[in-house]
C-alpha cells in the first residue's frame, strides 16, 4: 500500500473512534509535556548557571602563574619533584610566547590596585574622596555580555584616560540611594548626564625602578631564593595622581581575573594601567624586592572560545607555568547538571511510558472492534504487512499528534513555572530570571521520542492485527 493511502486510512480510522483516540493522544501529550517541562527546566537552570558564570568571559579565560610564585594545590601535588631549573619566570618573554599559542586572543596582566578617587558632583564643587579597588580591563572585553547594557560608551582606545564605573559606584558618586536589588536599576538620563564626561581623579602609588647594579645583583644571588636571577635595582614608590574621564556605566563587574574576591568598582584600560606601574596589593613582594625585568604574578589568557581552553592550558603547562581555568571548577557543575537532566528526564519519561500503555490498550481495543473490518480488508486483498503497517501508522499518527500537543503543553507548563517562580522572586525582592529554556534539540527530540515510543507501543497490536485469521473474523455476524 502507498504511504498516502496508509496515512489516509489510518487517520480516518483514528477519526472514527475520535473520543477514545483523542484521550489516548492527550495521554501521550501529557507524557511529552512532562518530559519537555522537566528537561526545559533543567536546560534553563543550566543556562542560568552558565550565564551567571560565563557572563563575562570566565569560560574562555586561563590564569597563568609562575610555578615559583604561586602554586596551586594541584600543581604542588602533581609536580612535587619539579626541578627549579625547569621552571620559568613569568616575564615579557613568556607573555609573548603565550601570545603566540594558537587560538590565544590576548594575554594581559590582571591589574588591581587600591586608590583614592576624588569626584566633584557639581563641576567646580567640593571633591569627595572615595577609596576603591580599581581594575584594568582589556579593550577586548568590549565583546563581553556585560556590556550589552552598558550605559554611555566603552573606552575609545587602549591608552585612553577613560574609566568605566559599576552602577553601584556611580550612585555613590552621585549620592543617590541604592536601588532595590529586584529592579534592574539603570541610571536615568539626567543621572547619566551628571556623570558621563566628568573627570575623576585617581591617586595611586607608582613603582619606579632604577637601573640594576651588578654588585647588588651578585649579592642577592642566593640559590634558595627563586628571585635571585631576576635581580634589579631598588624600587621606589612615588605618589601620583591622574585624571580620568568617566565614559560608561555598567551594571555588573566585567571579568578581570580569577582573583576577583574583592570587587573592583572602576575600570581603566589594561594597557594604560600597565604603563602606570601602579603598586598592586598582590605584588607587594615584587614591589619591595628590586627588579629590573618586569615579571608578572599572574597573566590572564583569553582564548577564542571555551573549547580552546583545554589545549591552550596544556600548551602553557608544557611551557612550565601553572594554569587555572574555570573549566577545572565547572567540571563538577557539568556533572551535576548531567545528573539533574538524567533525573528530570527519567521522571518525564515515566509519564510517557504510562501513556504508551494507553496506546497499546487503545490499539488492542481497536483490533477487537475492527476484527471484521480487518477480515474484510484481507478478503479484498490486503496483505498481513498492509494491516500491520496500518496499525503501526495509527500508532505513529497518535504519537506525532501527541508529540505536537505535548510540546505545546510542556512549553506552557514551563512558562507557567517560570512565571510562578518569578512572581515569588519578586515578592522576595530578588531579580527575576529565566529558569526555563526550550532548546531546539529538545523540541525535535521530544517529538521524535513521542513518535518512537508510540511506534514501539504499536508493535504488538500491529502484529496481532496482522495475524488475525480472516476466516474467523468474517464468520457470521
Amino acid at each position, binding site marked *: 500500500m502507498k504511504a498516502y493511502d496508509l496515512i489516509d486510512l489510518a487517520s480516518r480510522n483514528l477519526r472514527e473512534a475520535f473520543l477514545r483516540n483523542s484521550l489516548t493522544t492527550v495521554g501521550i501529550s501529557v507524557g511529552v509535556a512532562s518530559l519537555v517541562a522537566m528537561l526545559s527546566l533543567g536546560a534553563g537552570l543550566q543556562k542560568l548557571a552558565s550565564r551567571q558564570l560565563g557572563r563575562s568571559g570566565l569560560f574562555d579565560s586561563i590564569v597563568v602563574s609562575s610555578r615559583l610564585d604561586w602554586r596551586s594545590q594541584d600543581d604542588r601535588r602533581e609536580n612535587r619533584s619539579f626541578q627549579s631549573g625547569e621552571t620559568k619566570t613569568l616575564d615579557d618573554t613568556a607573555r609573548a610566547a603565550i601570545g603566540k599559542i594558537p587560538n590565544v586572543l590576548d594575554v594581559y596582566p590582571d591589574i588591581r590596585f587600591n586608590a583614592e578617587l576624588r569626584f566633584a558632583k557639581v563641576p567646580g564643587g567640593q571633591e569627595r574622596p572615595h577609596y576603591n579597588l580599581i581594575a584594568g580591563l582589556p579593550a577586548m572585553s568590549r565583546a563581553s555580555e556585560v556590556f550589552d547594557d552598558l550605559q554611555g560608551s566603552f573606552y575609545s582606545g587602549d591608552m585612553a584616560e577613560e574609566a568605566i564605573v559599576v552602577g553601584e559606584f556611580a550612585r555613590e558618586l552621585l549620592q543617590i540611594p541604592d536601588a532595590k536589588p529586584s529592579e534592574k536599576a539603570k541610571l536615568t538620563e539626567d543621572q547619566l548626564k551628571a556623570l558621563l564626561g566628568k573627570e575623576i581623579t585617581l591617586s595611586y602609588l607608582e613603582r619606579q625602578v632604577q637601573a640594576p647594579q651588578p654588585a647588588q645583583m651578585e649579592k642577592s644571588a642566593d640559590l634558595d631564593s627563586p628571585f635571585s636571577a631576576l635581580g634589579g635595582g631598588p624600587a621606589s614608590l612615588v605618589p601620583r595622581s591622574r585624571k580620568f574621564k568617566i565614559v560608561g556605566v555598567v551594571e555588573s563587574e566585567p571579568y578581570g581575573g580569577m582573583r576577583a574576591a574583592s570587587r573592583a568598582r572602576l575600570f581603566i584600560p589594561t594597557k594604560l594601567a600597565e604603563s602606570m606601574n601602579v603598586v598592586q596589593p598582590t605584588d607587594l613582594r615584587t614591589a619591595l624586592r628590586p627588579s629590573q625585568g618586569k615579571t608578572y604574578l599572574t597573566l590572564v589568557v583569553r582564548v577564542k572560545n571555551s573549547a580552546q581552553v583545554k589545549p591552550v592550558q596544556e600548551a602553557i603547562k608544557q611551557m612550565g607555568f601553572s594554569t587555572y581555568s574555570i573549566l577545572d571548577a565547572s567540571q563538577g557543575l557539568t556533572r551535576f547538571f548531567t545528573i539533574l537532566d538524567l533525573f528530570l528526564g527519567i521522571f518525564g519519561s515515566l509519564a510517557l511510558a504510562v501513556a504508551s500503555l494507553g496506546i497499546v490498550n487503545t490499539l488492542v481495543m481497536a483490533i477487537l472492534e475492527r476484527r471484521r*473490518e480487518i477480515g474484510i480488508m484481507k478478503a*479484498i486483498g490486503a496483505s498481513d504487512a498492509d494491516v500491520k503497517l496500518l496499525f503501526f501508522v495509527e500508532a505513529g499518527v497518535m504519537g506525532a499528534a501527541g508529540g505536537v500537543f505535548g510540546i505545546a503543553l510542556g512549553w506552557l507548563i514551563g512558562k507557567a513555572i517560570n512565571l510562578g517562580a518569578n512572581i515569588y522572586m519578586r515578592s522576595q525582592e530578588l531579580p527575576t530570571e529565566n529558569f526555563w529554556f526550550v532548546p531546539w534539540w529538545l523540541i525535535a527530540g521530544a517529538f521524535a521520542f513521542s513518535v518512537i515510543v508510540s511506534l514501539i507501543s504499536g508493535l504488538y497490536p500491529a502484529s496481532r492485527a496482522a495475524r488475525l485469521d480472516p476466516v474467523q473474523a468474517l464468520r457470521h455476524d
Partner: protein
Amino acid sequence: MPSVQPAIETHAVTRHYRMGRSVIPAVDGVDLTVGAGEFAALLGQSGSGKSTLMNLIAGLDRPTGGSIVILGTDLAKMSSEELARYRRFTVGMVFQSFNLISTMTVAENVELPMRFAEVSSAERKTRVQEAVGKVGLLPRLGHRPSELSGGEQQRTAIARALVNRPQILLADEPTGNLDSRTGTEIMDLLRELNAKFGMTVVMVTHERPLAERYAQRMIFLGDGKVLSESRPEVTA
C-alpha cells in the same frame, strides 16, 4: 464453455478443524473442476462445508490436505504475501452479509481494493465509476452502507469485487440476506457479469431453484464431500 485451462481445480482437498480431541472434517476430500467462464453453484445444507471450501478457493484459508490449482497455479506454493496478491487481482469475493465497511461511502468501499493494489488515484476514479456503473449504483456513490437497501449494499459489494478486474467471482450466499425479488436482481447481475465479461462465477446457495435457474452446473456438498453434480437445463 470449453477452455484449455480450468479456472479452478481442487484435488482431494481437505480442511480439518481440530476441536480439542475431536477433528471436524469441514471439507473432506473434494475433487472439483470449474472451467473458465463457467457459472457454478455450490449447494448443500448448512454446515456442509460450502463456506469453508469457498474460503480455501479464495486463498483466505489453507487446506490441511490436497491441493487447489487456480488458473494453473498451485495455491499451496504461494507465500502469504502472494496469496494476498492473488486475492487482490485474481478473485473477487461477495458475502451473504455484504461485509462493507460501514464508515465508508459506496465510492470509498469500492475504491478500497485499489488502495491495496496501488492503483493510481486518477485511475481509481474512473474504475470506481466503471464498476459502480456496472451494478447500476452511480446515484448512490456518496452514500454510506447504512443508507442503502440490502440489494444496494450487495451491489456495492459486487462492484468492490469487480474493481480490480478479477477473473473469478466467488459469491457465498449472495442472496441469503435479501428478499426474493432483490435476490433475483442480484442473480441477474451475476449472470450478466458471467455472460458479458466471461467471468468465472462460483456461487454458494441453499436455494435450489435459484441455482437451477442461473447456474450452468450444480455441485452438491454434504459433510464436506461432493455428493453429486448436475447440469440443469439453463432457462433464459
